């Protein structure tokens, strides 16, 4: 595995490329890309050209007619998605996006300027699909599709996390995430996905979740949390699984069930729902909120998403609560309704505790747990002791998808400020709609591309370092399972001493439960402030 340079070396970044982007050679460098998709996973997903291949080798084992396949693929998508067609035509190269991308800021690689990332596809579009490009060729910024261009696409479409920060600054609102999504769809026509995406997607297709957890594994994992909760709080919790007739179905990313610190977030959900005596059930079938199909193609996203409504229907629930996740919500909020809806067998979500109607979820019937909890606090339904989190100086990382994609700016902050006494914001051009990506979203959170991840996460880490130095911030809160997986190594690398937490872990620490014993530790089994240790 490629060694990552030291932070002092990696932070030396030249942001002024001295040549035109096309003059830089394509250097597919270890540490900056993920392993290729495996034959077995491509087969499971019924994707074309299933074979084992390596990006490091010269021969990518492309199908014979690869070029026509790609050109047909572009044509089909130009006809299908008007947005894509417009984005191919309207850019005036003003450069407003150029320095907004975390990958450009962390690498100085000119192809990581969003305008260029789009241009590598646009130039081919011009050559084959516009009169100007056909006639004037390179004088019109057009170029032929070659194997080298294809490799360039692959390398740079998997150096974009679809975070859409650049779109925010584009005067035309060109959505680079959509361009990357189409770029990746084209790659998939040739079997050129990455293993870190197709592996989890194949698991999800076969077993219902990315990690490939069997029903009894899910149950045993949750029972493990329940033992810990009993030890810490003295409260015995007995959640139900696959229970027909429950009012609410709860769906969360499987990462929360199996990897720290997400597991503490899952303990948070369990404790909160128990305290409310909520009539809800877990499902071992719809056991994944996230959707790595979304990083493959729209068809795959739809296929993997379908089990949520299917399970809601089978169990006869009224509505659905979803856990803390980012891209999961991009799919649920913006696509699920038309992918697999209308879910007219469900009811408009109403909180059984506060009576609040979730107008925004009228159509999808699915509510993000952070707004559910914010509403509980707003209505005074939770007894909270924020001093239990007094050892934490917290800042909040807006996850790209819940922030830019859904507008969740206030809810998480409102919750955190009610359960923690020490909270400081990062600089305003790095939060809310301008938030910087964790650097590893959209399926790039593998281990073999660690240099890429550390580079992409550099702007986010830099803003954390600012509040770490200024206010002593030691905890980075978020509402996204990918963040919980990707931010800990990012902090260890750039800002040692800052840890990462889901917001419902903070809630559960502060939550005063009926019949609980005097708590000595937090959910991580560390002494509470004032209880020894410190």
């Amino acid at each position, binding site marked *: 595995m490629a060694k990552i340079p030291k932070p002092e070396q990696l932070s030396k970044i030249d942001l002024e490329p001295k040549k035109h982007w096309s003059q830089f050679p394509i250097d597919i460098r270890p540490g900056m890309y993920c392993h290729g998709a495996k034959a077995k996973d491509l087969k499971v997903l019924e994707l074309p050209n299933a074979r084992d291949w*390596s990006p490091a080798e010269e021969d990518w084992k492309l199908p014979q007619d690869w070029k026509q396949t790609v050109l047909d693929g572009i044509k089909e998508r130009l006809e299908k998605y008007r947005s894509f067609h417009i984005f191919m035509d309207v850019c005036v190269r003003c450069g407003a996006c150029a320095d907004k991308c975390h990958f450009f800021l962390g690498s100085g690689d000119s192809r990581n300027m969003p305008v260029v990332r789009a241009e590598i596809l646009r130039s081919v579009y011009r050559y084959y699909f516009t009169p100007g490009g056909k006639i004037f060729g390179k004088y019109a910024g057009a170029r032929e599709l070659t194997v080298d261009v294809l490799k360039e696409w692959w390398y740079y479409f998997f150096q974009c996390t679809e975070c859409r920060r650049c779109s925010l600054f584009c005067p035309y609102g060109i959505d680079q995430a959509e361009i990357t999504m189409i770029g990746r769809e084209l790659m998939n026509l040739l079997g050129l996905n990455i293993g*870190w995406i197709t592996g989890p997607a194949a698991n999800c297709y076969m077993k219902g979740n990315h990690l490939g957890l069997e029903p009894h594994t899910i149950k045993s994992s949750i029972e493990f949390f329940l033992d810990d909760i009993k030890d810490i709080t003295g409260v015995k919790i007995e959640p139900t699984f696959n229970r027909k007739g429950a009012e609410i179905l709860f769906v969360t990313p499987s990462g929360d069930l199996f990897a720290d610190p997400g597991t503490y977030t899952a303990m948070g959900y369990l404790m909160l729902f128990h305290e409310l005596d909520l009539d809800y059930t877990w499902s071992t079938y719809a056991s994944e909120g996230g959707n*790595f199909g979304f990083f493959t193609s729209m068809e795959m996203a739809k296929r993997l998403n379908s089990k949520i409504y299917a399970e809601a229907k089978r169990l006869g629930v009224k509505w659905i609560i979803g856990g803390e996740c980012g891209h999961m919500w991009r799919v649920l909020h913006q696509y699920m309704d038309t992918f697999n809806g209308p879910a007219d067998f469900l009811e408009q979500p109403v909180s059984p505790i506060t009576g609040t109607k979730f107008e925004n979820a009228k159509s999808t019937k699915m509510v993000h747990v952070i707004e559910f909890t914010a509403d509980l606090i707003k209505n005074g339904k939770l007894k909270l002791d924020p001093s239990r989190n007094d050892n934490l100086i917290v800042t909040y990382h807006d996850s790209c998808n819940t922030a830019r994609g859904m507008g969740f700016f206030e809810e998480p902050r409102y919750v955190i400020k009610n359960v923690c006494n020490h909270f400081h914001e990062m600089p305003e051009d790095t939060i809310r709609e301008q938030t910087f990506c964790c650097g590893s979203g959209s*399926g790039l959170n593998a281990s073999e591309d660690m240099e890429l991840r550390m580079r992409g996460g550099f702007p986010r880490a830099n803003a954390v370092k600012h509040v770490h130095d200024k206010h002593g911030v030691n905890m980075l809160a978020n509402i996204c399972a990918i963040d919980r997986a990707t931010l800990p190594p990012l902090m260890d690398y750039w800002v040692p001493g800052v840890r990462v937490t889901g917001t419902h872990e903070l809630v559960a620490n502060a939550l005063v439960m009926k019949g609980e014993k005097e708590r000595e530790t937090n959910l991580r089994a560390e002494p509470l402030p004032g209880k020894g240790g410190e």
Partner: protein
Amino acid sequence: MPLLEFSGKSVEVDEDGYLINLDDWTKELGEFMSTQDGMNLTEAHWEVINFLRDYYAKYQIAPMIKILVKEIGKVMGPEKGNTKYLYELFPDGPAKQACRYAGLPKPTGCV
């Protein structure tokens, strides 16, 4: 896929050295993988590796680190039931390194 040459046989492994076919595993192969990393597996290492294999047989996935920690604490004594001890045994990380010697697939962690 790369091949690992071991006692006159070729065993298929992935890019990171994990077995492709879990049935290829033998105790000797686990030993061999560790010596290639300059390690010498002791009783304590095998305690971890055997637990990983048993857990995998039951659940088809490598356990969470905290399950491993708890289990090792139970078997080896509470002073050893911590991640520090496991990292001393497996400096590249108990999940990654021990799973590889145990013939399990590469742990995915959170996706």
